[in-house]
């Protein structure tokens, strides 16, 4: 029971990170119906920017961890959002109205480009950071197994929850959110009634990238080590989360992220950790075959 509880906590933490990345996939898919294959790499770029920003802040003498983390959060979100914007601008916007596979191929190209760009710019070695947020609360201790909730896990879960609330509010109650929902329902009709669709799409990418940057920071803090390749697997898993929750649906992405995190953690804990990626990939395949609309998604109508 206590082992189960500990895995539950770990799973929720991991799931929170996936959920943040999954939102980027689900929003872009909802609006322009493409899989932004480079989104996982945007997450990776965000993580690297956070690492560099943190080290740079240390170098110029900002050593108070909470202040440094706050600044890192701001810098990384801002710059990653810039990356998201430029990726959309360069690789996707010129392709509206191109043939069916063009945006996906372009996205794969962008993903390869970003990975190698970071690899060349910062080296292929694993970058590790000593733990910044330390300390833990013991929840249960029966002498054999200690169930604990670490402070970093609290930070991750609280940050994610706050961002989710903020984001849900943004989508449901602001002008931008209304534009986004309008674009999601019908891009052409939205442009006819005066929604600036290009701007809305750009902002969707920007917001998705900013959330991915937060996920990248949390990943960096939680695992303490990153390399240029983390975006690939994390991206596929977050995409799986988006599909599982129902692609295009915001609560779906959150739910899917949590579920993928939990499934992966329990799979590693009770079966085998070597095959934990296989578990996530298999879920992706099974969901797509048997339940393509996901848990909260709407059925897709095929139009000629």
């Amino acid at each position, binding site marked *: 029971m206590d082992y189960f509880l500990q895995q539950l906590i770990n799973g929720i933490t991991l799931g929170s990170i996936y959920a943040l990345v999954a939102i980027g996939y689900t929003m872009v898919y909802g609006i322009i119906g493409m899989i932004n294959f480079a989104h996982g790499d945007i997450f990776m770029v965000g993580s690297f920017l956070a690492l560099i920003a943190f080290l740079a802040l240390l170098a110029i003498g900002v050593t108070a961890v909470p202040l440094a983390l706050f600044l890192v959060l701001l810098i990384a979100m801002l710059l990653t959002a810039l990356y998201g914007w430029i990726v959309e601008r360069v690789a996707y916007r010129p392709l509206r109205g191109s043939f069916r596979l063009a945006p996906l191929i372009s996205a794969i190209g962008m993903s390869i480009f970003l990975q190698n760009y970071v690899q060349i710019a*910062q080296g292929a070695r694993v970058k590790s950071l000593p733990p910044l947020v330390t300390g833990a609360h013991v929840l249960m201790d029966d002498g054999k197994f200690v169930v604990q909730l670490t402070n970093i896990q609290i930070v991750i879960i609280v940050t994610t929850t706050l961002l989710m609330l903020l984001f849900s509010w943004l989508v449901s109650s602001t002008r931008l959110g209304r534009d986004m929902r309008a674009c999601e329902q019908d891009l052409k009709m939205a442009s006819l009634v005066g929604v600036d669709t290009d701007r809305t799409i750009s902002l969707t990418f920007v917001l998705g990238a900013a959330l991915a940057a937060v996920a990248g920071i949390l990943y960096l803090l939680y695992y303490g080590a990153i390399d240029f390749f983390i975006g690939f697997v994390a991206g596929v898993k977050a995409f799986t989360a988006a599909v599982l929750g129902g692609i295009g649906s915001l609560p779906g992405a959150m739910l899917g992220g949590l579920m993928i995190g939990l499934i992966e953690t329990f799979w590693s804990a009770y079966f085998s950790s070597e095959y934990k990626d*296989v578990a996530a*990939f298999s879920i992706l395949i099974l969901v797509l075959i048997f339940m393509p609309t996901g848990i909260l998604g709407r059925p897709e109508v095929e139009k000629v």
Partner: protein
Amino acid sequence: MQPAARASRFDIGGAIKDALVATMVAFGLFSLMLGLLTAPGPSGKLEVSARPQLLAASLAVVFAGRFFVSLFARNSRFTKLGQIVPPDARNALKKLERFAAPALLLFALAVPVLFFSNRYLLDLGILVLTYTMLGWGLNIVVGLAGLLDLGYVAFYAVGAYSYALLAKEFELSFWVCLPLAGILASFWGILLGFPVLRLRGDYLAIVTLAFGEIIRIVIVNWQSFTGGPNGISGIPRPSFFGIPFNNEPEGFAALFHLEFTPTHRVVFLYYVILTLALVTCAVTIRLRQLPIGRAWEALREDEIACRSLGINTTNTKLTAFATGAMFAGFAGSFFATRQGFISPESFVFMESALVLAIVVLGGMGSQLGVAVAATAMIGGFELFRNFEQFRMLVFGAAMVGIMVWRPRGLVATRTPSVFLEEKKTIPAAIVEEARQ
């Protein structure tokens, strides 16, 4: 600004403004990533060091690049990149294209004769031909049938491991294993394809990616069967229809009264992969004329129309998938016998992406284009060894660039194999409407 003024002269002020904005954006992008380097310091902890020259140089490149692009893009004579080449030159190129394929084929046949003493070039030739073959195989799936397969390397791996295990465990010869490897790979293609081919284009791509990764992870972890991360070594080398390439009395050199040299084996391997690649090409060209090939091309253009015409889309996709997988299996078993050693390292997602990039750059559906792209991208980068690390960077950027500027490929266009003799002109307005 009036359009007339824009067209008549170069607008230097506007271009400078554009370039400044681009440089500011680039500063945001590059300031941390290129301007600072994180590396372990003397104490082993990560430390950050500044690289102002690199940052300044990259910003200067962005400024200059954007400046010239704006300058020319605002001049109406250069509004479209494709129009830079004058029509006369393009017609001449088209004529040249007809001779390109036979000329390339003759050159490929002559390479071992011309460069017999240059072992390095022969090895490079084998590598290029392997990727050409993979490209042609994937071209059936992506170029003809329009199914984006991101897990192609999985079938390459199945072929390689099939040969390695069959040859080592049962001592079967290469020529027996080759068809078996092809059959096994295409069997896996059918097995994996059957449940997923009902999916829409994008989903299919992601699912094939997942399958490719699953197969790789299984290979890594199933140690007792595949040797795990250590791979399989000591895979039997190919023989000339039973005659080994060695310095023995019954070896190839002695039998044909030649002086023994290890190059014989390399030349033999070269012709084996050339034959395999040409078979792939010939089969593809023939298949394009057959009903199944036409169905593939129709499927690529419009799936719903296909279904309404009574084409069984699942079966059609499945045959394309299996055929492509079979050729990957052939290429895989060739790879295994050439290397003598295989490990999961060779079958990562990047390989799939590399082959896909070759197909995309060459022009999806074009045989000649794929061959040229493979030669340029694999051969070209081998020759410039110092730039090895930039290879995938260029590939990624090129994939984006091709999609933006020339989605039908850099080298050639994909043309339907069959079309109506009498061409009807359709007004642009109707085409535009139909596209919506």
